[in-house]
């Protein structure tokens, strides 16, 4: 069976991102992806696109996304024309700080680094190209997660 692929172009604003992550969730559910891999792939997309909306600078060009469901993993690619930004190795938020002085600003990118099994970045032709993958759970490959 051929790998299932999902492609989309997304403008980096809150409404478009929310609609896109819902469509991606439906696609991954239909493809029989386990609950953990599904959640983390959508989390990566939401965090990267939200970061682009917040810090990417004004760009009329929508981000291009491709998600492929492979037997062992979900592979994803995000290409955007925002400001150069490499999310790998984003500084770890101060997770041990107390309730009153906790810094949560870098949490999204920290989660992206921790919850992906592969994360690669290149600046190509004036665009950011992020490639990531999330492993599928062998115990749940057939579905119910």
């Amino acid at each position, binding site marked *: 069976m051929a790998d299932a692929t999902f492609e989309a172009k997304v403008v980096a604003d809150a409404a478009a991102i929310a609609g896109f992550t819902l469509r991606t969730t439906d696609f991954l559910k239909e493809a029989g992806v386990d609950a953990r891999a599904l959640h983390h792939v959508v989390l990566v997309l939401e965090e990267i696109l939200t970061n682009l909306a917040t810090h990417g600078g004004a760009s009329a060009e929508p981000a291009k996304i491709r998600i492929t469901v492979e037997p062992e993993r979900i592979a994803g690619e995000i290409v955007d024309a925002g400001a150069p930004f490499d999310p790998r190795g984003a500084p770890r938020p101060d*997770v041990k700080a107390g309730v*009153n002085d*906790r810094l949560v600003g870098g949490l999204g990118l920290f989660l992206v680094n921790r919850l992906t099994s592969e994360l690669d970045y290149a600046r190509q032709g004036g665009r950011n190209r992020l490639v990531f993958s999330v492993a599928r759970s062998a115990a749940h490959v057939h579905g119910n997660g």
Partner: protein
Amino acid sequence: MKIDISEYGALGTKITLVGRLDIAGAEKIDLPLATVAGKRGNVVIDMSGVEFLASIGIRHLVMAAKAVARGAGRLVLLAPSPVVTEVLVTSGLDAILPIARSEDEARAKLTGSESA
């Protein structure tokens, strides 16, 4: 995202969240969550119906925990799904957002009969 607010016996307030705690969901719970957290008293957030949690949602939960702590109360998350639990634990937030697996455990954490 649906948010439901009720009394939690004499212990405080219970907030039940159902749906996705993404950008849209976080926006929806922002005001009601801040209102409850700003009152004095404990807060239990039933997370069992939350199917998606991203950093923006975590940020709202942390802000609520801070507000509850300022009023000398405690905030406990009740029964998040395994995948939502993984996100919370990966974040290293268990001290600020303690997780209770059951109502009994939630009550114990609120009354201090078990250390959070």
